[in-house]
């Protein structure tokens, strides 16, 4: 048996890894938007959690305007979507290209 044939199994494994990666990129890209949608759904379900929409009869401080729970969820989703996810997808792509070049 020649050495080329003997090394074909790891090569197949690598190809399977490459084929598995697209869902990973999609999953990472979906994390942020899903979080944003979660925050928006929460805001619609409980509008009184947003003081801009519902502040009658309540004495509010600056913190009540700064920390509005559903909006914080949306903010986290936005930060993840624009600051973390793009780099991860780029790196997934880079690893994919490196593996396929081997």
């Amino acid at each position, binding site marked *: 048996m020649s050495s080329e044939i003997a090394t074909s199994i790891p090569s197949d494994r690598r190809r399977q890894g490459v084929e598995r990666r697209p869902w990973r990129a999609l999953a990472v890209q979906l*994390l942020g938007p899903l979080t944003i949608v979660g925050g928006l759904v929460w805001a619609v379900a409980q509008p009184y959690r947003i003081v801009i929409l519902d502040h009658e009869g309540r004495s509010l401080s600056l*913190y*009540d305007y700064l*920390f509005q*729970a559903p909006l914080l*969820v949306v903010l986290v989703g936005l*930060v*993840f979507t624009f600051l973390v996810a793009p780099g991860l997808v780029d790196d*997934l792509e880079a*690893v994919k290209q490196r593996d396929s070049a081997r």
Partner: protein
Amino acid sequence: MIPHAENAHWLAAAVALFFGLILIAELIVGPEVFHRRKWRAYLFPSLVIVSSVGLWLITIFSTFSTMHLLAHSIWALAALVAGAVELALARGKIGRPAWSLVPAFALLVSGIAFLVHEQNPWLYSRSAFLHHAIGWMLVVVALFPLGRAVQPGRLVWRAGYALTVVLLAVLLFADRDAAPIFGRFGLGGP
């Protein structure tokens, strides 16, 4: 001007949610891809250490109750130690899986502090209910980093840890200073 407890808890929940997303993302792409950029490798430990600084600040303002002061001090210390260990792991200063025992111990101590400093029963108010729920959750999920120390290769420990942090965020977001436990459905509360 000191923020209400619920404001501080929601901010902590937002940080926990971000933690959770980071951990889930690492789980999806794998450590090799995740650590390709140095800032990402340092993100989680840095956030834990910054959180500990935030907890120390809250400790300073927790003068209304000795129990709260002690509990927040313990959480701040636990976060600082766990963050330091995670930072050393990210920098490659330490590498043995057994170091995961430190975050496990930090979670266990944090859970016990939650349970001890809540003096009201489960159904007294939403805040009391959440303190009990979070406390027991932290005690139980200390098993995940413990499992990571014993079986570092198993995905279930890392997945459990990531999902726990998201659940912690949900529980903290649910906190209100004064509210029935299940909102308009009643049950418990003042």
